[in-house]
């Protein structure tokens, strides 16, 4: 039997978390996994803290229990800290270092790292927002990070590409490919 892989994506409403989780989910189903997941809709979506769970090879409920997450993909450092209780010991944590401030709250990146470090040392931290800007389209941050994290997800590259093809609007497919590939290669640099 295949091993279960629990992935948590978190960030701030509007960063493309829903789309990212759906691409993983569709790619997972394509490869024959049973997939479970959750999404956030409605009021909480408006610029609030957002989480999406994707569970590959899972026949239970949609939500990852605390301390069971294999991979955490965080689009915003403070949100990574907030959801870090979901990560298992020595799980993989991919973090975008670009901060989206909460008015009236200052924090140091070091504090965030400290909170994550009590769970794992496998932290991959980059300014993915800055990288997206360099690539010319800051809104594709989510796909860049998905590309990077895809190195840790047991789904073939072509299944991700197929899922992007199925789910993303036609005019954006090309740019999404580019960001996915760039993200995937970034890990090997």
């Amino acid at each position: 039997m295949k091993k279960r892989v629990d992935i948590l994506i978190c960030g701030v409403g509007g960063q493309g978390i829903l789309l990212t989780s759906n691409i993983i989910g569709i790619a997972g189903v394509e490869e024959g996994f049973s997939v479970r997941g959750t999404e956030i809709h409605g009021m909480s979506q408006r610029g609030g803290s957002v989480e999406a769970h994707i569970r590959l090879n899972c026949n239970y409920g949609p939500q990852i229990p605390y301390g069971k997450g294999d991979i955490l993909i965080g689009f915003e450092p403070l949100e990574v800290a907030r959801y870090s209780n979901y990560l298992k010991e020595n799980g993989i944590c991919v973090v975008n270092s670009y901060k989206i401030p909460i008015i009236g709250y200052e924090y140091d990146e070091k504090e965030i790292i400290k909170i994550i470090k009590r769970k794992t040392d496998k932290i991959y931290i980059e300014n993915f927002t800055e990288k997206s800007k360099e690539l010319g389209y800051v809104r594709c941050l989510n796909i860049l990070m998905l590309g990077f994290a895809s190195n840790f997800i047991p789904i073939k590259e072509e299944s991700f590409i197929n899922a992007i093809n199925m789910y993303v609007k036609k005019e954006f497919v090309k740019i999404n490919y580019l960001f996915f590939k760039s993200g995937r290669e970034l890990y090997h640099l």
Partner: protein
Amino acid sequence: MLKYFLNGNTMEKKYLLGNEALAYGLFEGGLEASFAYPGTPSSEITEKLVEISKEENIYIEWSINEKVSYENAYGVSLTGRRSCVIMKHVGLNVASDPFITSVYTGIIGGLVIIVADDPFAYSSQNEQDSRRYWQLAKTVCFEPSSIQESKNIAKFSFEFSEKIGLPVMIRSVTKLSHGKSDVLIGKRQKKIGDYGFKKNPSKFVMVPSNARVALKNLNEKQEIIKKEVEKLPFSKFEKGESNIGIVACGLTYSYVKEFVETEKKNSPIFKVSTYPLPEKKLKNFLESVNEIVVFEEGDPVAEEQIYIYSKIYNLKNKIYGKINNFTDKEGELSVDKVEETFYKIRGKKKKYYSFSIPERPPVLCAGCPHLGSFYILKKVFGKDALFPGDIGCYTLGVKLETIDTCLCMGAGISMGSGMSRFEKNNVVSIIGDSTFFHTGIPALINAVYNQANQVICILDNRTTAMTGHQPHPGTGINAKKEKTVEIELKKLISNCGVEDVIEVDPYKIKEAIEKIKGIKDKKGVKVIIFKRECIITSKGKKIQYYIDSKRCKGCKLCLTINCLAMSFKNGKAEIGILCNGCGMCENICPYKAIVKDEKKG
């Protein structure tokens, strides 16, 4: 897409949202007409139905409110066709009047009510448990435990509704409606039988003499319901060896399964997916264990039933649940919560590493027209005015001190009327366009008729924004995105007898302030329509603004709009990448320091 063969049928496997699975279930079950008012977490069911039913002649509408929805669906049912009505939990309060009595009369074509509850109130004003309506109405309620089962039950429910001759409920919850799963999709089946309304006054006209008979019949029918529910596969007893049995209702079954299998426990489980609970199966379960733990989201509905059955059958099980505080009375359950309860039973406490991170609450989008409306209202009426509010994105105005109440759909206007009788300060009710159509209209007419002295603001962003941009009667578009009659707000309001009704553009702040000052001190009901399309749906040119730092004097006036794109750094204002080019800040800047970025225009 993957194909599967099951029982000789080809089935397709798709990755679906729980609500989408419900839509497929209704579709496959032979749905012929669907009615709904948008509400999180239920809205995607209707949207998916529109998408998948293109080839079929299925009638789908966004109705003006849930009561109207229900009565439409019931009307369809009386013509012999299969219909459904979809809503969020609080929507059933609005539809409860026709619902309760329609169970007295019974139905002809299958009638299914889908109610999506919101434990933890992610996007709601309360956490009420719709299963209570099952008891009140005396029909059958289903509660699926997984997304695949949501589809299966939705499909089956029409047939069952026709079999017992009653409307039936399906209760979903947020994590089921907005959960995702691979789902097997099958073929559409159709109802075979007679169509057309057949007159039968003693059945359908609920005058007191008929109602008394109908209630007696309904009470007698409960015995048939009990027998039928016993035969269904959805609620079941899974045998085990442990002395502690677990009762798991709806989605909590998936949490219990994960907990039990991860911990390698061999607990007997009683899965509840039907109300009433199947009595014989339950009795077998209760007799096989000494103690039981009950997991359910919302009220202790199943738990209370178990207490009743225990008394009837003289069983002595120790019951752990909400009533004796072993499970939470509020919020959602999860695998962790299930584990916590078992810790509690053993007298232990589970420890979590805790750290404090400030909340990141939802906010209005950059360039949201409501920001302009709130800015204008504060300027004209000041902070001493009373702002009874309503349900929609604009409820987020609570942080801008321009929403003082939020109770239920349409309440802002009527509460304002009541307040205005005894308050000296201005009363300024705030309601959205879709909410105004939903239940605001009777409240407005009441205010005019009874000569209230209040201002009513309709924040008309040309859509039902909060729930994902569904059309409403003011948009001139229907659920299938076809053109229809547009109900013009200004005309409608004038015809309700309002003499002072004006339309302003919340982006043109100065102009709007002047216009509103003109009617502010008049007596009676004054209506201001703030008309400007939602920033998410507006297809306008994507322009951005920037700060000319030579001109910016650092007065911070632009910050008082509370736009997400605006910040303050090194003594000057700064506009970030979130700017949607609304121009509200340009409109109020006294130093002309906010400039349009033409290159991006």
